[in-house]
C-alpha cells in the first residue's frame, strides 16, 4: 500500500520541480529580453547597424559605446554627465522633499492629535483621482506664472506634489501599527513637538520613510512627460534627449542604449541600500490594509 503512494509523491514533487524550473526560465526570458535588447544595441561598435540588421548577437561586441558615453564623445550626448546630474538633482530633491513634507504632515495628524486626520488621508487619495499626466497643460502655464519655467524646480514641484500623497498614505498606515505610548511618554517629559518628531518619530518610522523615499525617487526617475514639456534643451535630462531623438536616425543608438544602461544604476543603488527597511515596512503595511 505504501510504496505506490510514495512513488506518486515523488512523481508529484518531480513535476512541481520541473514546473518551477520552467516558470523560472520563462520569467528569466520575460524579464531580460528588453534589457538584452538594450545591451545588444549598446555593444555594437558600428552605430545604427544592429537595430536594423536583425542580429541576435552583436557581431563584434565592444564596450566602445560605453566609453563614448562616459567621455561624452557620442553625438547628442556631449553633455551626458550634465544631463545625468540634472536627473540626479530632480530625483534627490524630489525624494528629500517628499519624505520631509510627508513625514511632517503625518506626524502632525497622528501625534499632535490634530483633528481631521481622515481628511488628510482622503485628500491624499483624492489627488490620485487626477493622474499627473492629465494636468500637464495647466501645470505648464502655472509654472510660468510662478516663475519656475525651464527650471529643474518646476519639475521637482510636480513630482513632489504627486509623490507626497502616497508617502502620507504609507506613513499613516505604518503609524497605525506602532504604539502611541512612546511619544506620550516623551511629551509628559516635556519635549517639544520638534524634539519628538526628530528623536522619536523619524527613527521609529524609518522603514516606512524608506518606502516613501524609494517611491519618490522612482516616480521622478520614471517621469518623462513633465521633463519633456517643462525643460528646454539646455536643462535637458537624458530621458528627454532620448525621447526627443526618437525619430532621428542620425543619433547613435548604441551610445543611447549604453547611456540608458548607466541610467539604471541610481535606483538599483537606492533599492539595495534600503532593501531591509523596504521589505519590513511593506510587510507591515500590507498586512494592515
Amino acid at each position, binding site marked *: 500500500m505504501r510504496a505506490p503512494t510514495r512513488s506518486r509523491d515523488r512523481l508529484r514533487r518531480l513535476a512541481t520541480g520541473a514546473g*518551477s524550473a520552467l516558470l523560472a526560465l520563462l520569467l*528569466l526570458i520575460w*524579464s*531580460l529580453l*528588453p534589457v*538584452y*535588447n538594450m545591451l*545588444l544595441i549598446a555593444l555594437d561598435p558600428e552605430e545604427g547597424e544592429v*537595430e*536594423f540588421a*536583425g*542580429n*541576435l548577437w552583436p557581431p563584434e561586441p565592444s564596450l566602445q559605446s560605453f566609453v563614448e558615453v562616459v567621455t561624452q564623445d557620442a553625438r547628442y550626448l556631449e553633455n551626458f554627465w550634465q544631463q545625468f546630474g540634472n536627473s540626479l538633482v530632480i530625483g534627490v530633491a524630489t525624494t528629500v522633499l517628499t519624505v520631509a*513634507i510627508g513625514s511632517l*504632515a503625518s506626524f*502632525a*495628524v497622528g501625534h*499632535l*492629535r*490634530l483633528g481631521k486626520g481622515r481628511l*488628510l488621508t482622503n485628500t491624499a*487619495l483624492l*489627488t*490620485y*483621482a*487626477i*493622474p*499627473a*499626466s492629465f*494636468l500637464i*497643460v*495647466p501645470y505648464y*502655464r*502655472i509654472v510660468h506664472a510662478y516663475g519656475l519655467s525651464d527650471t529643474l524646480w518646476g519639475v521637482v*514641484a510636480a513630482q513632489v*506634489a504627486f509623490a*507626497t500623497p502616497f508617502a*502620507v498614505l504609507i506613513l499613516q498606515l505604518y503609524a497605525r501599527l506602532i504604539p502611541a505610548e512612546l511619544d506620550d511618554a*516623551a511629551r*509628559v517629559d*516635556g519635549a517639544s*513637538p520638534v*524634539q*519628538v518628531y526628530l*528623536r522619536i518619530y523619524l527613527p521609529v518610522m524609518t522603514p516606512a520613510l524608506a518606502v516613501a523615499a524609494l517611491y519618490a525617487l*522612482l516616480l521622478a*526617475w520614471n*517621469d*518623462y*512627460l513633465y521633463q519633456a514639456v517643462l525643460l528646454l534643451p539646455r536643462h535637458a535630462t537624458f*530621458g528627454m534627449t*532620448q*525621447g526627443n531623438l*526618437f525619430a532621428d536616425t542620425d543619433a547613435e543608438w548604441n551610445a543611447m542604449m549604453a547611456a*540608458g544602461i548607466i541610467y*539604471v544604476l541610481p535606483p538599483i543603488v537606492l533599492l539595495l541600500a534600503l532593501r531591509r527597511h523596504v521589505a519590513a515596512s511593506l*510587510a507591515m503595511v*500590507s498586512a*494592515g*490594509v
Partner: protein
Amino acid sequence: MSTRQLLAVSSPLPASGPARPLRRGRLRRADLAWGVAFVAPYAAVLLAFVLYPFGYALWLARTPALYSELVGDPLYLPTLLNTLLFVGLGVNVKMFLALLLSGFFLSRRWWIRALLAIYLLPWLIAAAQAGVSFHWMLIDQRGLIDGLLSALFGVEGPLWLNDRALAVGANIVAYVWKWMPFWTVIFLAARMTIPREIYDAATVDGATGVRRFLHVTLPLLANLYLVCTLLSTLWTLGDFTTVYLVSMGAPTGHSHVLATLGFRYAFDSGRPALGVAAVMSVLPILIPLAIVLMRRFQLSEVRL
C-alpha cells in the same frame, strides 16, 4: 534611545503631580499651532501644484463645444476604446499575474531568490528607457522580436506597429513588463505576513494547491488586492510614457490612449483646451473610482 535623551534636553519642569492636567491643556493649544505648522508645507504643495492646476484644467475645459468637437474627431472614440483595453487588460492581467507570482517567489530556494532580483529589474529601469527598448524591439521587421521569430521558427514576423491591434497589444505588454514587479513585491510582502499555522491547518483539513489558494490566500488578500487594483487603475489611466514611446500612437494615431491624445492636441496641434477636455472627459469615471478607494481604506481602518 528616546526617553532618557529627551529628558536630558527637555526643560526641568516636573513631569508629574497635580500640574499635569494644566500642562496638558496648555500643550494642546500649543500643539494646534505646531500641528498647523507641520501640515502647512503639505497643504501648500497640494494647493499650489495639484488643486490649482486642477481648477485651471476644469476652467480650460469648461466649454461644451469642446466635447462635441471631441466626439466629432474620428480619433477620439477609438482612443477611448484603446484606453479601456489598455487599462482594463493591462491592470487586471498585471495584478492577477503578480498575485500568482508572489506565491512562487515565496519559496526560500536560493535560485528563486536570485531570480527575484532579476525579476525586479524592469521596476528599476526608467519608463522612458523601457519604452524605447520595446519600440526598437518591434520596429521594422528587423527588431529583436522578429529576428527571434525568424531564427527560431522561420516565421516572418509582422510589422508590429503597423497594425492597430498589435500596437495596442505591444503597449499593454510593455506596461505589464514594467509594472508587474512592483505589485508582485506588494503581494509578496502581504503573503509573508500570513502565519504559517493557517496553511498548516488548511493542509490538515485537506486543502492543498488550488484549493488552498482559493480558500485561504485569496480571502486574506482580497481587500489588499482590491485597493491595489483601484489605485493601479487610477495610475494607469494617466500612463503617458508607455504609449508615447512604445507605439507612439502608430499606426496613424490609432493606438493612442487619452493621455497621449490629449498631449497631441495640446502640444502638436496647439489646442491646449481641447487637450485638457480630452483627458477631463473621463472624470466621471475617475471620481467614483477614487471615492470607492477612499471607502475601502476607511473600511480597513475600522477593521483594524
